């Protein structure tokens, strides 16, 4: 997953729900120096009884915001969705030098 262009990641999930796996996997894929390079990472762990949907909010460096509903999406789909915009940004960066 291309994480260079992410500026903000916010998630909220209930770890006792099997649906939380996608959010947790996404957090695990961020590189170890993500916070040091200026990415804002926030996670909210909901209580066990909560029935709230797991949410993922991603903001890119160009200001585009993605709000993903993790209830239906799998980890690979989330990655594809995020990478699609990241690749556009990467191409722009390449062309501008």
């Amino acid at each position: 997953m291309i994480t260079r262009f992410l500026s903000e990641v916010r998630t909220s999930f209930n770890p006792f729900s099997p649906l939380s796996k996608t959010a947790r996997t996404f957090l695990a894929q961020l590189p170890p120096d993500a916070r040091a390079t200026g990415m804002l990472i926030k996670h909210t762990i909901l209580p066990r009884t909560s029935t709230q949907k797991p949410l993922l909010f991603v903001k890119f460096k160009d200001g585009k915001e993605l709000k993903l509903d993790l209830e239906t999406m799998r980890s690979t789909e989330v990655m594809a969705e995020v990478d699609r915009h990241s690749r556009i940004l990467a191409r722009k960066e390449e062309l501008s030098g």
Partner: protein
Amino acid sequence: MPPRIRLQTRQLKVRIYHHQIPSQPCFYASLATATTPAPPIEQTIHSVSPIARFPPTQPPSHKPPEVRKSQLHREYQSLLKSSPLVLIFQHNNLRAVEWMGIRRELAIALRKVDAELAATGHKDLYADAIKIQIIQTGIFASALRVVEFYNPESTELPTQHPSNPATATLAHGLSRQAHEAASDRKKKLDLAPLLSGPVAVVSFPAVSPQHLKAALSILSPSAPNFPAPKRKANPSYHEPAVQNGIQKLMMLGARVDGKAFDQEGTKWVGGISGGLDGLRGQLVGMLQNVGAGVTNALEGASQSVYFTMEGRKYMMEEAEKGPEEKKGGEEAKPEGEEAKPE
């Protein structure tokens, strides 16, 4: 010249046998059967000592014992059985330096708790036994299933077949019985959804709220109840390596006495003031209050009965006395009237 030994022609004939000679039983003295007493009845039902096909330290295992996975499985089982309190964390790409820092800070905080407890005369010092370790989630989940669902003490194990030592009763966690008990997919673990992705556990050898509080305030500090150590008091905790590491640790839940707890539940356990002694004190206080309440209530009932009875008695007496008094009053009045003229 005729032969000296006289042979009859019949003896010279070559004899060909078409059937086997029935073998005669040979009577050797060493094979002679003596009449021995019959063996005890138990020996005939159960074999005396079946030849063990395995050394006692290496009982047969359902999973190949030489494999790392099996050994990890065994290790996790013993970890789960020996630690009633296990915290589960997700670790997101921590670096070795960060792990080192976190482990160091955890050990320092726990030793501090131990020193405080030792000063007050406690003997439950667990600081050196509390460790954070990364686990293999799949194997850990399987080991947890064995620990939860396989109970060799309570379940009926098949007894050893008299002639087949391979059917020996094995109660260990890698045995076939354990595997069968754990592989029942209808039984669900509460903690199963937590055990995926990168997971580390902190295991405590006893449910000790003081130690838990110290560990939580290091690993997942939260403002009012579990504050992180102050910069002045503990400058090494505020090193960038440690702080970066702690940001990447997420507490998911805990297993306390076999039950799954979420973050808030764990904080509640850690927030028991004064540890187990404090809890006992609270319980004693509560029971005393309850006792006082019960005695009050019981006393109240009897008192109220007493008062009503007394009241009734008084009323009856009043009623009995009443007319007399009235009469007396009437009598007195005329007397008074009589007295007045006098």
